[in-house]
């Protein structure tokens, strides 16, 4: 039998403790152990970005991080954006500008956009396109995703809300 390791990972501000195999990918830890299925598994090769989550605030592709590497760290997933009653500016922007179709890439795309807007709250179109170039979308042709990020930037500027929006409900 494989050896198991104890980990404590803070996911969306909530500590999660589990015994896991060292080979378990972070994406599977989030989906199977934590039951947070908003983070999707797309391509196996760190290419598509569907599985993007924030690791201590930095976007990472969780198919290429082991669960044990997240021990003692903070992870934010799509479920950690906004609150049940309020959408984050990025979530709202994707809805307002029709920045999603099938929705499969959307959580990863929004996580990247969230980290990007935290760093650069007033980006140009070129900066947005470059920032999102680690995330694939097969449906939208990106036109409306770019608009969605611009919409979110504007919302942040006028409302003073951060890209991630209100703190999540525990």
């Amino acid at each position, binding site marked *: 039998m494989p050896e198991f390791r104890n980990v404590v990972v803070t996911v969306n501000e909530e500590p999660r403790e589990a015994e896991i195999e060292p080979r378990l990918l972070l994406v599977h830890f989030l989906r199977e152990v934590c039951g947070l299925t908003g983070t999707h598994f797309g391509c196996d090769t760190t290419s598509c970005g569907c599985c993007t989550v924030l690791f201590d605030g930095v976007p990472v592709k969780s198919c290429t991080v082991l669960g044990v590497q997240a021990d003692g760290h903070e992870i934010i997933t799509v479920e950690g954006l906004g609150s049940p009653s309020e959408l984050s500016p990025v979530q709202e922007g994707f809805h307002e500008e029709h920045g999603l179709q099938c*929705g499969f890439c959307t959580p990863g795309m929004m996580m990247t956009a969230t980290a990007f807007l935290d760093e650069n709250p007033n980006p140009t179109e070129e900066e947005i396109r470059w920032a999102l170039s680690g995330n694939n*979308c*097969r*449906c939208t*042709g990106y036109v409306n995703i770019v608009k969605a990020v611009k919409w979110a930037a504007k919302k942040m500027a006028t409302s003073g809300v951060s890209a991630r929006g209100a703190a999540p409900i525990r």
Partner: protein
Amino acid sequence: MALDEIQIGGLGASRKRVEDARFIRGKGNYIDDFKLPGMLHMETLRAPIAHARITSLDTSKAWMTPGVHLVVTGEMAAQHNLAWMPTLSYDTQAVLVTDKVRFQGQEIACVVADDPYIAKDACEAITVEYDPLPPIVNPQQALAPGAPIIRDDKAGQTNNICYTWEVGDKENTERVFADPNLQIVSQDIYYPRTHACPIECNAIISDYNSATGKLTIYLTTQAPHIIRTAVALVAELPEHMIRVIAPDLGGGFGNKVPVYPSYVIAILASILLTRPVKWIEDKTGNLISSSFARDIYFHCDAAIRKDGKIQAVRIHADTDNGGFFSDAQPTKFKIGLFHSIFGCYDIPYGYMTAQGHYTNKAPGGVAYRCSFRITESMLFQERFMQTCAYEIGMDQAEFRRVNFVREFPHRTTFGFLLDSGDYDKCLDLGLEKIDYYGFLERQKQARSQGRLLGIGISTMSEPLGAGNSREYDIIGIKMFDSAELRVHPSGKAVLKIGSKTQGQGHETTFAQIVTHELGIPADDILVQHGDTDNTPFGMGTYASRSTPTAGAATAMVSRKVRAKAKKLAAHLLEVSEEDVEWELGRFYVRSAPNRGVTIQDCAFAAYTNMPDGLEPGLENNAYYDPPNMTWPFDVYITTVEVDPDTGEWDVLKFIGVDDCGVRINPMIVEAQLHGGLAEAFAMAYHQMITFDSQGNCIGANYMDYMIPTAWETPHFELYEVVTPSPHHPIGCKGIGECGCVGGPAAFVNAVVDAIAHLGVRNIDMPCLSSRVWEAMHYKHDVPGTPPLPGT
């Protein structure tokens, strides 16, 4: 007072999507998100080699791996009469290999275990020994004398040809070509293999309940009803005891129409183990084994008058169908609707032949974001039109215009009936928006300064929305679609459709059709789809057919409901039905317009206050069999700049003008076009999945088969023209595939145009910088593949 239709989310409203609420919160329901009690996980072992006999297969170590419940081989599948299955083109396909491997990635065995990691470990513990056979990787090799026969399983198969087909008027076409006053232009083009590759791969959970005998299949499929019927027929299970649930699809684009071997084994495993079995395909498995698209060779001759009018075309197409002929297409058309080629041009005579070939590649020919090989025909058509314009010395826009169809209805050379369009209007708008004539001047100036600018045009009308059922079916199931509408006592409604969304937003737009017909606000209408127990039979979503068929059925069922509501209104208003008039959302007395009842009043009366003799309730269903396809028309024009030193090229501007008839939700129509155009750009620019001489698939992951990102993808500027479909109840036409069908030629034409003065006429897709550089440097065409014999 009549309602404001846009305000309540009716026809023409850019209504925000209702689907978004779950997706932006990470609450979508894709197959991998489902967890059933007692669920097991399956993994598929695939062949690493393209053509080989299996000399030994040892699964003993897999069986001994702790946590493994079942190992299924071809031999075991054969015991259950499931070693082979029918394809959508009346061929057969191996479920698991019993005799020999016919392509790299073919399914050898499946392992079912407690978790997917264990199932993967156990797959690695299976030992297979192969006796290699010479691999055949293109039609040229397939036809070579002495080539091994790939389908030696088929009685009477003495070569590697899987079909031949012809259409048109051979005699008159040849007569025209014999006219010495006409100029003959010829060209060969290859459309390489592509893969739809939705980001969510194929996936299934099969759940067999041994107590009730009910089989519930959770499947990421575009066609749940067809799958149910197919499973019933193949597995000989009673159809009423099969339920297919297709929840949220992470894209489809044609890849999620067929039945794949691992689905069959997952179903078998859940029946044998009486436990739910989940199989989630990995990306490499998806790219190397599931249905490919294109892979087709085109040769065309045109006989052209001095004024530019094409008098006849002669076409031959060779398709590479891989190891099994599994094209999803109407039964009577062996190369799909390829003969819709040149449809928007008024060409008196044409003759076309086609031949399909078995090779040692994964089964191909799936309709990837196009209805039945129309994507291929439109690329060839528009690439060839540009070549003809160069060869006869005409402006490429004018050459198209000279040949446009202008009078409708029009029967095309190959027999389709065009029913509507205004091609000149679309082209004029496109030329104006790209500043065509200004660009031609700038192109000339730039060339004198050593800069290479190009402009590419693509114009086309494609048949979208299959059927009618007279001509179109898949494995005998006729092509139509359906809708069922229930209006509850409080006036809120549930619409159930036979089609299925793969991301296009049916839950939003189909409600808008009901709103248009009944005046019930769109927010009061829930749209359900993708569950065979709870929706009427339909053919699913592909061929841009949802709006032309299920959308039409939605309008028709709404009208049936309105007809009944009118009887209720007459009863409530105490007048005869003939005295009742309708305006959006309300019936009123003709002679006293202020006396009226709303549709909601009628709904309440249907359950609380019916007139004597009227059946209670306010619901109905409709099956819609369209009398014709719908014929959108599209103009795509792009300008590019090619780097003379490297062959790299950038899009300067892209203009699209689309006439898809009436737009239900303009926001969603535009977004459908953006998506299709991005895929078009990808194929023209860099996306390549190919095979080496041993049949190894090159491009088996997203690092090699590169999906364009926001960084490479250009901005698309879109405009509309509206010519309603004359037969669709609300005048709509299909649109979802237009960008992907018409787009590629615009990009390639622009690149070729930038260097056409060097004598270059063709660069096969993708127009990699290395190919463009070679074309410039050596002043010749750059084919993507060796030529076929006889061309």
